[in-house]
């Protein structure tokens, strides 16, 4: 399964502060571990909300609102996309992330997969699967 790891913003990230060499190295090492474990699919940092815009939809109306935006704790500062076997695995990995000791909230959300839409699991396939398992159990 895939999990999106959403790093929420902080005063520091919103102020446009860039991590120093030591911090970059630490984060780099963590990212390397994710790559080496085959977990990392992608990861990016986002510019502070002062560089962003929001587009509000109301009926046919499109309103463009410039950043910065107020609710810092709810803003997204960066994200990863990870390939993991379970949410628990994603939780274990994020616990090992450096640089967040200062106090940041990270949200993990599972990505929709085909199986979730039920499209692949027609009653016929589920039937077949059940019969196969029965056969195996009998051996």
């Amino acid at each position, binding site marked *: 399964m895939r999990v999106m790891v959403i790093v929420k913003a902080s005063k520091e990230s919103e102020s446009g502060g860039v991590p120093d060499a030591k911090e970059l190295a630490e984060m780099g090492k963590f990212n390397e571990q994710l790559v*080496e*474990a*085959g977990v990392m699919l992608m990861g990016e940092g986002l510019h502070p909300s002062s560089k962003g815009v929001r587009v509000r939809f109301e009926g046919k109306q499109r309103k463009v609102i410039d950043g910065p935006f107020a609710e810092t704790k709810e803003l997204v500062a960066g994200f990863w996309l990870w390939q993991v076997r379970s949410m*628990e*695995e994603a939780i274990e990995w994020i616990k090992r992330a450096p640089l967040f000791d200062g106090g940041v909230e990270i949200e993990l959300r599972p990505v929709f997969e*085909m*199986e979730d839409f039920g499209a692949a699991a027609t009653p016929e396939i589920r039937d077949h699967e059940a019969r196969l398992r029965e056969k195996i159990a009998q051996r």
Partner: protein
Amino acid sequence: MTADTHRSIEAVWKIEAPRLIAGLARMLRDVGQAEDLAQEALVAALERWPTDGIPDNPGAWLMTTAKRRGIDLLRRHRMQDEKRAALEYEFGSDAMTHAPDHADALDDDIGDDLLRLIFTACHPALGRDMQVALTLRMLGGLTTPEIARAFLVPEATVAQRIVRAKRTLAEKKVPFEVPRGEELSARLASVLEVVYLIFNEGYAATAGNDWARPGLCEEALRLGRVLAGLAPREPEVHGLVALMEIQASRLHARTGPDGAPVLLLDQDRSRWDRLLIRRGLAALDLAERLGGGDGNYVLQAAIAACHARALHAKDTDWARIASLYARLAAVAPSPVVELNRAVAVAMADGPEAGLRLVDALREERVLANYHLLPSVRGDLLFKLGRRDEARAEFERAAKLTGNVRESELLRRRAEACADQ
């Protein structure tokens, strides 16, 4: 213990297991014993962590526990004095390894140890089934029931394979090492075959037969990526990763709403995973830059990339695919490769040209019961307006395939030959 805690411990185990086993294997020079000790450490974790909580450094906890158990066990077998001494030395030297420099050095060693572990799990002394079971167990941290479920075989069968694999490795005194020089190529090819086999088990399964196994594709992809990290200068490793990423990108497009398989050329390409395609193309690029352009997996990946790059089926560069198959035929000749080349040639140069190549394959014993031969021939004959012959071929193909869905598809094509 709550289900949540159990799942968390399981997750930690799957992260830590390969390094744990690899590190122990280096000390004991015995993969089987290492795996046994690691399992004991897992049992201990399942006993202690629910009450004590998961330790901050679970890997270190597991290793320390495993070593302790190992020393205890070996104390009872006096013939293993050497091994016990090795463990005690390592155990004692743990106290010196808290300095950060040491930690980095250990990391490098662990990389090598993981590589040794992979090569050992895929050793030629073991049958393919054993290699697959051992690889999934030691490198994927999969339990016996999980492996059994993945391959639709009884648990007892998997347990037996693992036991026999460990015994064989011990009896033959298989060294815990990465092969060198000339041996490396062949041994690496074997490792890649195991990984690709696991991938295909999951990939083929998703085409309407059994939807419960895309997890195998993911497992294989992860193994491939791990390998790519451990052996970054091996182009064939990147080639295999590229091939798997690109094939996996199509997983969600391969099944229609009624669960029927959808052929590549008919797939809704908007459902192809662009991220995986991007990763696959990057891996392929890396493999080619490393000079691996004519490797077996690199060529297969290059062919897959041709499809991946075409936004619509009609944009496919068939001429390039045909020439890639020709190169593949030189490297890994087989009638199946030639058949695929014929298909590409037909798409590039017309059905007549393709048919000439297919006709040349009709005597091949290997293809005697291969349903795709008459299926392809039928398709080309149909395109040439030779409908009666096409119908016969489709009917033959329908009888040869074991897959009910495909059989139906082929029978419908046979019927369509009668339409005017």
